[in-house]
């Protein structure tokens, strides 16, 4: 299938109320986007898992399950990468959520929490947090496109 010229990139935005039960809708959207960008199965799975983790954090920690508040997603589909921005408008980010230790260390392996951000960092190429207590939290998840023997811009 011939790919469309995406030199300028394409942007998809999506918002939904802070309900965990709606995350499968997000999952479907991410699947569609990674298919469009021709990510392989492993990379597509990693993007989906990471976006769902970010969405879970926004609902649970950012909005405290307040269904009146919307979580915003922006998907920047660039020729070389996908950048997903997840925005919540909650009271602010809890820095303690960022594990200082590797939760896969033997002594931390059995902890029941503190894995979400670690999972995102392991599965994406770059993960950044833009934290503003007045506005909420913006999580930026970047995944490079790796095509089979082709230049991403070919």
């Amino acid at each position, binding site marked *: 299938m011939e790919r469309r010229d995406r030199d300028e990139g394409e942007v998809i935005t999506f918002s939904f109320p802070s309900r*965990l*039960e709606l*995350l*499968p809708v997000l*999952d479907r959207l991410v699947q569609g986007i990674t298919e469009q960008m021709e990510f392989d*199965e*492993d990379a597509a*799975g*990693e993007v*989906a*898992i990471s976006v*769902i*983790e970010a969405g*879970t954090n926004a609902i*649970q920690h950012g909005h405290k*399950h307040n269904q009146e508040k919307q979580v915003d997603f922006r998907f920047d589909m660039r020729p070389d990468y996908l950048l997903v921005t997840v925005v919540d408008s909650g009271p602010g980010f809890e820095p303690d959520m960022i594990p200082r230790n590797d*939760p*896969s260390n033997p002594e931390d*392996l*059995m*902890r*029941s*929490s503190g*894995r*979400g951000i*670690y*999972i995102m960092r*392991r*599965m994406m190429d770059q993960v950044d947090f833009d934290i503003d207590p007045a506005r909420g939290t913006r999580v930026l998840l970047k995944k490079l496109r790796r095509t089979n023997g082709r230049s991403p811009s070919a």
Partner: protein
Amino acid sequence: MKLTQRIEEDLTLIRLGGQLLGGPDAEQLRSALLAAVEQSSPHILIDMSEVSWVNSTGLGILISSHLAARQKGGALKLIGVSKRIESILSVTRLNTVFEIFPSEEEGRRSFSAASAGKP
């Protein structure tokens, strides 16, 4: 999330379906697992074949239930793990915590072997 359980003499088989996410569903699962450990057998076999995905909150529930089972001399073991769930278990190294079996028969056999090995 869907949850059915079969309490047998030596183990409890729990079949899960849907998403393992957190929220009210998570509490349902946590309660069911802990009740199984406390009231029937600490040997828990979880069939994940109908689970489409798990997030970090869901992993936390599995871990706390496994710890509860271990305290009673049992374990929580998994069967029917999809590639996607396997990758999240691998990244978090939880594949070294949970025993994972390709079939229900092998999962059952592992509990029998563990029981037989005890004095």
